[in-house]
């Protein structure tokens, strides 16, 4: 490693991010300040460091000033580190000699009333970043084989779409559905907005697609029991009809959709004269609606203290079913009690117009004055009239939200991905990586993320399949070089106590035949637990070494202790 002996020559690039950073703190002054720090030989401020111009400035800086370490002080490594690493790599600087300093997401954006303090904070963070950069070492990523197979968990619209798309591209694909039949929510629905297609026809088409593709293996009454390994090489245990099957899988797609909410305790829900939209769909399908005075209540169990979110499909579902009821029998009275109506885009707004024309009555209510459902009457307070309206009913339909599955948590822990506060799966980044999880090789689509309609579920199914195929269309995968390491010069420190073996969550550490501690780099995820625990400080966590972290501490503390 020649870089080790080489004197650090650090370049610091301070980003203005338009006015996101530069609007609060003086980036020119920060660049000037950076010049005063040890080992810094070049600094510059950029309007947008991530733009073509900004990246060219970094490359020129490296060339003209012979930089061997690069720092960008800007947004956050979670979104932009790959871009800058790539940029320095192209100019011949090892990507691990790049260091990110976060002065936007964790500074200017959250101290908007404190420009001076935010400037000082940025100075400290750059000082710490420079201190760490001086100690960084070049590392190489490792290349491992990737299995070109995919596992799709959940056989609803989104899962079937994704599985079919992957199988069509020639990848061996396994579709896991825990119920006896594919289809998810679609199985029960009657007609679908926005084109009144019969749900069962769509379902049959989707099923035909997945059943007729020889690359696609469908596992019904099946559940994922265990997942080990890493991108390109997941070892998955599936229980299908009581039998265990072992699969080696390259990529995993989560398409587990949602569960239904039973509105027990809301408006005297009884499943008979007070039912959910979902139950109404069944009734419509079986031509079993006798009622003549139908009142629908929106946002039952959503947008309240317990569930803050909007379930996004219920307004359209109510409009759709109201129109169907009117078409079936124009004499039927249909009223919709709503808080806000969500009908975005031309297709959906058209439904609203048609419903009005067909004579559906819309009454707004406010959550402060909730409607009350009595024996044969529904009482709802009307703000405009300033009085209560009494609407007779023989069927009351509650529009309840789609909610997350109870067992999402267990699945999330198995594949090591996060859930958001309502129990839905949380993607890596809502705008930059909407189909990805932070965990490599795992993707998400459809209403597993939050309630979406079928059009969106299908788009997301295709999108996730496309993202997944970018991995399994290659024979190999690059694994991070930032891993745990027991260097030969530290072997004398190791007493063979085996504590590191016990704490490693990935079983990456073992004793070899010579009774020496051995770390398998491809299994190591670089969490650093073994290094923090090692009894005799023998294990080094590359890219987060003790020396590197201590240098950051000392740079902030102002002295070495």
């Amino acid at each position: 490693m020649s870089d080790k002996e080489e004197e650090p020559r650090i370049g610091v690039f301070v980003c203005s991010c338009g006015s996101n950073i530069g609007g609060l703190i003086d980036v020119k002054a920060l660049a000037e300040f950076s010049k005063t720090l040890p080992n810094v030989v070049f600094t510059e401020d950029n309007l947008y460091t991530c733009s073509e111009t900004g990246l060219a400035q970094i490359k020129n800086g490296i060339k003209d000033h012979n930089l061997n370490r690069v720092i960008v002080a800007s947004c956050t490594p979670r979104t932009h580190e790959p871009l800058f690493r790539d940029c320095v790599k192209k100019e011949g600087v090892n990507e691990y000699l790049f260091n990110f300093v976060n002065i936007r997401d964790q500074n200017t954006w959250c101290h908007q009333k404190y420009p001076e303090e935010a400037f000082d904070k940025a100075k400290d963070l750059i000082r710490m970043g420079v201190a760490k950069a001086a100690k960084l070492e070049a590392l190489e990523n490792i290349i491992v084989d990737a299995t070109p197979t995919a596992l799709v968990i959940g056989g609803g619209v989104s899962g079937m779409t994704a599985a079919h798309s992957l199988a069509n591209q020639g990848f061996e694909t396994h579709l896991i559905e825990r119920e006896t039949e594919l289809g998810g929510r679609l199985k029960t629905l009657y007609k679908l907005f926005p084109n009144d297609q019969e749900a069962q026809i769509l379902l049959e088409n989707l099923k035909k697609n997945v059943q007729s593709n020889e690359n696609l293996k469908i596992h019904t009454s099946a559940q994922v029991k265990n997942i080990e390994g890493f991108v390109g090489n997941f070892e998955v245990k599936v229980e299908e009809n009581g039998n265990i099957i072992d699969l080696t899988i390259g990529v995993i797609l989560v398409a587990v959709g949602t569960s239904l909410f039973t509105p027990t305790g809301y408006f005297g829900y009884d499943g008979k004269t007070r039912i959910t939209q979902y139950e109404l769909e069944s009734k419509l399908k079986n031509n079993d609606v006798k009622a003549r005075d139908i009142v629908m209540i929106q946002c039952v169990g959503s947008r309240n203290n317990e569930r803050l979110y909007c379930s996004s499909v219920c307004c359209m579902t109510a409009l759709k079913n109201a129109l169907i009821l009117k078409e079936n029998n124009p004499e039927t009275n249909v009223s919709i009690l709503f808080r806000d109506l969500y009908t975005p885009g031309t297709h959906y707004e058209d439904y609203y117009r048609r419903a009005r024309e067909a004579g559906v009555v819309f009454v707004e209510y406010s959550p402060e004055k909730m409607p009350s459902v009595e024996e044969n009457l529904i009482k709802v307070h009307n703000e405009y009239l300033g009085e209560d309206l009494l609407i007779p009913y023989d069927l009351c339909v509650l529009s309840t939200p789609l909610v997350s599955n109870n067992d999402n948590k267990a699945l999330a822990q198995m594949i090591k991905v996060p859930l958001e506060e309502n129990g839905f799966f949380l993607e890596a980044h809502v705008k930059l990586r909407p189909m990805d999880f932070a965990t490599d090789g795992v993707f998400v689509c459809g209403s597993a993320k939050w309630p979406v309609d079928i059009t969106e579920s299908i788009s997301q199914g295709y999108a996730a399949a496309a993202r997944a195929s970018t991995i399994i269309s290659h024979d190999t995968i690059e694994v991070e070089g930032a891993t745990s390491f027991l260097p030969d010069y530290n072997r004398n420190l190791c007493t063979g106590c085996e504590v590191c073996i016990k704490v490693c969550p990935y079983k990456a550490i073992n004793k070899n035949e010579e009774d020496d501690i051995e770390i398998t780099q491809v299994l190591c995820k670089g969490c650093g637990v073994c290094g923090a625990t090692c009894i005799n400080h023998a294990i080094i966590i590359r890219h987060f070494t003790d020396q590197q972290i201590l240098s950051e501490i000392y740079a902030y503390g102002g002295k070495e202790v």
Partner: protein
Amino acid sequence: MTFEPKILGFLCNWCSYAGADLAGVSRIQYPPNMRVIRVMCSGRINPVFIFKTLLTGIDGVFVLGCHPGDCHYLEGNYEAEKKFIMVQKFLKIVDFDKRVRLDWVSASEGARFAKVVSEFIDSIREQGPSPLSGENIDQELFNNLKAMENSVSSDRIRALVGRQRKITEVENEYGEKVPIDEFNAIFDEAIHDEFVRQRILLSLSTKVLSVKDLAAELKLDPSEILENMLTLKSRGEIDYQSIDGNTPLYMRI
């Protein structure tokens, strides 16, 4: 001017650092007192880091990881918690444990991140500047924390904390699980003894002292000092240097 604390936060990449970013993306405001060191997992935090930070005079240390069960690396935060509790036990000896805090923030909890950080800053502001900051530092406190740093660096303490989860939650080499109370009693005693020993070593590395001198300096019972010195002597870490009248004087080897 009012006192503005200097705080260092150790944030794990996957949850708490993401939560901190989300606070920014959502423009949630909080006071600008904390600087952040990003680590991949809270389990990366070597307890030595926390003592080093406090020794530089930084007023407070905040460790943030994923919620229990949510660690990106499965169990790193449980390991982090064990080490953190140990650090607190040491710091409690000198009533300094309120200057460190451990909490969990998920990637979706931007608002919670801002809240827990603000609360910690307030708590440190109330406690006032660290006696180890500025020009005239409290040397006795410095020595005590230095002895603690050396303790958490020692193989004995590291072996105990490193094995803790296996011993108490799974089972030890003999296939038995040690009840947590029993383990804690052993651990507490080890923490206290190791601290005293490291404190003795620190004093003897610059001066030659008798048991009585040491007892006075460390404000401890001479018999306890003597007991620990015998252990240190048998480990070959200290020895007689000379005899002053009837009193043996010791030095560090």
